[in-house]
């Protein structure tokens, strides 16, 4: 349990150090995730040592979105005044992304065969 947590928080800390050190505009946790993936691939970290703890975090991730999301109360006025443009952009972008990506990959794979 504590070994797994130490590894996960260790890679989070490492990611934060890398981001700070190289002055990258990327979240430290993303760098930590990439580094942990590489460490697993190159056998620096054993999957059994982090598996259970990591799955606990991943499975319970959705409740963690609530507190940051509630922050919309601070921007109520701004969001309300632009709600229509936001909504239209979301729908158009979703439809464009799902249809064009699906067609693009399908054609890509057809050419391969």
């Amino acid at each position, binding site marked *: 349990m504590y070994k797994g947590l130490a590894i996960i928080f260790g*890679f989070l800390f490492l990611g934060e150090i890398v981001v700070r050190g190289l002055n990258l505009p990327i979240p430290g946790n993303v760098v930590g995730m990439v580094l942990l993936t590489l460490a697993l691939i190159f056998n620096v970290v054993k999957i059994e040592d*982090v598996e259970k703890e990591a799955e606990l975090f991943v499975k319970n991730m959705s409740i963690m*979105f609530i*507190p940051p999301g509630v922050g919309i109360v601070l921007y109520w006025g701004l969001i309300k005044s632009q709600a229509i443009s936001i909504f239209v952009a*979301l729908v158009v972008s979703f439809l464009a992304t799902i249809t064009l*990506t699906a067609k693009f990959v399908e054609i*890509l794979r057809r050419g391969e065969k």
Partner: protein
Amino acid sequence: MTSFGIFLTFFLFYIFSKLYQKKRAFYLNPVLLSILSIAVILKAFNIQYQTYMESARILSFLLGPAVVSLAIPLYKQRDIIKSYAREIGVGIVFGGTLAILSAFYVAKILGAEEVILLSIAPKSITTAIAIGVSEKIGGIPALTAVLVILTGIMGNAVGVEVLNLIRVRDRVARGLAMGISSHGLGTARIILDDELAGAVSGLAMALNGVFTSLILPYLINVLK
């Protein structure tokens, strides 16, 4: 009274999760319902966001280790990545960029302010990563969180129907399109129909999160 925020969050999420398990309707997304109800409660009782966050903050802090933990599903599915490396790679660069540009420009044409454009740009990636990206590029993380969830709800509700309508039958193409356009909520839907498409979708979601967080800060400088 510091525990008010965390109690409210666990309590409402529990109630709405139960409701969702019972009805299985896409519009009953427990995260979105919890966010909206807490927002309404704070407004109604004139409670400051800071007061709520005093204890609820601990939950958002856990997003850090949660994102790092995404390395585990990624590592476990490495065989699928190897089998479809070209499709996944090219698909993410194409779809991930398209998702950013289409949202950014449609909102811009409709006259949205810059801070809104920055908040909407990362809306197709998984919420945990999107919040961090939004913060880095100067968007409003809270707005991004809500927009990401709304995007996921669309994918969950009609994604499979859209793919059927345009007659894409290729399982890898379907999975990639779903994971890139509507992250975890889209993945949760397509995995019910097709395990391979679901696995590809989950991978596409994680990798698109990495891709978007790498390119968006630079892309935004060009777009602005």
